[in-house]
């Protein structure tokens, strides 16, 4: 009487299923999964992992120059960085650029997502149009915005002049240049923001909205107190993504203004580029790059923290 009467436990069944799963399939050896996955892992490690670590490592060194060998200098490059007035100026510009883009991008993203949400039938055609800015390069987008905002013949100034006012020097005025850069950056980033928020709207429970409707809540109140709080997860994703994209975004700023006029659009990313490829101080630039990576991580944590406060239970 050694036979078991009880049914196999769940753990045993799962173990049996696991082993059966692998033996059930013929034609591959133990090495196959590794052969399949290693090229990708090596590629990612070589192109992404290693260079980033190498960059952080190098930011603690001073390069060899004039016969003096390369040497470890600890945090000297970082001390140099925070002593530089250029760094603080670019940090200030970055704050304006990132938070400006976040505010404009999120507001427009929500507005357009709500607009698209209503038209289920025609959605497909409009959605394809919406994504258009995402499929063109930053440089092409910049060319378009330079034409749109051109002082002499741009459509924006023509419209302003039509109302009898003077056209503005969009790209020559330090304050306005930042506005144009923010708008161009938001234009390229908005499609993804809209798609993320639209995806969130699709999952909002209709019955909650209907209940609010029965209670007599107006459209605005329903959006403000019900839909937008319910969208918190998607708002966090789009905020994190927009912030990441603008904080580390270089293409739009570089092609549009190159940091000018009068350094008005010299963001941290531009500052890193300038220090590296104009002044050729690579180790100094790596300190700035490392700072940007850290800042990005900190900002992401802050967004998630803030969102947790507002989330519905």
């Amino acid at each position: 009487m050694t036979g078991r009467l009880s049914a196999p436990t769940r753990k045993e069944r799962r173990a049996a299923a696991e082993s059966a799963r692998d033996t059930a399939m013929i034609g591959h050896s133990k090495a196959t999964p590794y052969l399949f996955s290693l090229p990708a892992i090596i590629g990612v490690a070589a192109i992404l992992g290693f260079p980033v670590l190498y960059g952080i490592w190098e930011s603690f060194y001073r390069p060899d120059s004039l016969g003096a060998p390369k040497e470890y200098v600890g945090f000297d490059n970082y001390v140099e960085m925070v002593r530089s007035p250029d760094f603080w100026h670019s940090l200030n510009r970055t704050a304006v650029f990132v938070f400006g883009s976040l505010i404009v991008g999120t507001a427009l993203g929500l507005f357009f997502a709500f607009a698209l949400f209503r038209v289920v039938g025609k959605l497909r055609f409009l959605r394809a149009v919406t994504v258009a800015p995402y499929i063109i390069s930053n440089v092409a987008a910049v060319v378009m915005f330079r034409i749109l905002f051109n002082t002499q013949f741009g459509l924006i100034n023509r419209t302003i002049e039509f109302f009898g006012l003077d056209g503005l020097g969009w790209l020559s005025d330090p304050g306005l240049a930042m506005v144009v850069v923010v708008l161009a950056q938001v234009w390229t980033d908005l499609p993804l923001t809209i798609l993320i928020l639209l995806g969130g709207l699709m999952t909002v429970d209709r019955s909650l909205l209907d209940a609010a409707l029965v209670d007599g809540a107006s459209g605005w109140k329903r959006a403000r107190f019900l839909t937008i709080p319910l969208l918190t997860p998607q708002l966090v994703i789009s905020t994190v993504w927009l912030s990441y994209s603008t904080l580390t975004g270089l293409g739009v700023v570089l092609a549009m203004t190159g940091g000018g006029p009068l350094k008005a659009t010299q963001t941290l990313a531009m500052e890193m580029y300038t220090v590296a490829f104009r002044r050729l101080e690579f180790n100094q630039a790596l300190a700035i790059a490392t700072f940007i990576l850290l800042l990005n991580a900190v900002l992401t944590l802050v967004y998630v923290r803030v969102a947790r406060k507002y989330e519905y239970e």
Partner: protein
Amino acid sequence: MTSEYRPEDEAPLAAETAAAAEAVIGPPPAGRPAMTLRRGLRQALLILPLVLLVVWTVMPFIVTLSVSFKHRAQVFADPSIIPDLPTLTAYKEVLGSESFTTSFVNSVVVGAGTTALTLIVGVPAAYAFARFRFRGRHFLLLFALLPRLVPSLGLMVPIYRLAVAAGLLDKRITLIIVYTGMLLPLAVWLMLGFFQQIPKSIEEAASVDGATLWGRLRYIVAPLAAPAMITVGVLAFREAWNEFTLVLVLTTSPGNRTLPYELYQMQGIEGLANFPGEAAFAMLTVVPFVLVYSRVERYVVAGLVTGSGK
């Protein structure tokens, strides 16, 4: 009361009721202008944001297209969106310039190379993570996906330094390898989710019938995975076609630049800006990809939304 219920009896009954009601409370109000006005307003409120969305998205394209069909002087003289005398001068100029043709070929080569390499390396890896249970699976998967958080800005200086050290600067193959590396986490992530949705039982059934691993991949997995592979392929091509900041530092000679770099150069070099030329160049950069994109739009949108949840 033995008569059966007949629906047609209802109509006269309803008419009778209506007549009785009218007799008591008066005729129904005829044509309410206030209501139609309000309905029209509601319609407008629904449509206005959509119009704004289209204007916001399309306006930069329209003004650029408009300028690309003008002469240089005409840009300043003729402000209309539809030019009085449209001309193809700018397009002829751009298509005839070596800077465009060379960089176009480079972009096609780098785009195709990146797409092919990303699929060749990424798809088997995703399949392995989705199908096989092997030691270190979770750790290796994390290792393959986590670097997705690295922005290309963080790579710029280190990759440039490493390329210089390895003598790989100013080569198209370097661009292909770097772009592939940047896209692999996304490719593995998208394909992994897709492979996990294909029921294992299909492959198990084929296996019972004696299909080898290669046979299953060739005749079952590949056809089923085609849509996901198109998504990954288009996203890879888009990245290679549009990428600007890395090609800026990784190439030095005009013969190896891709389209965005060449367009950027055009902006910088011209003393008196050649707006129609720039506009035509930008349009010619955008159009080929738009043609590809319009055929596979739904795959791309699906991929974008999945890929954004980093």
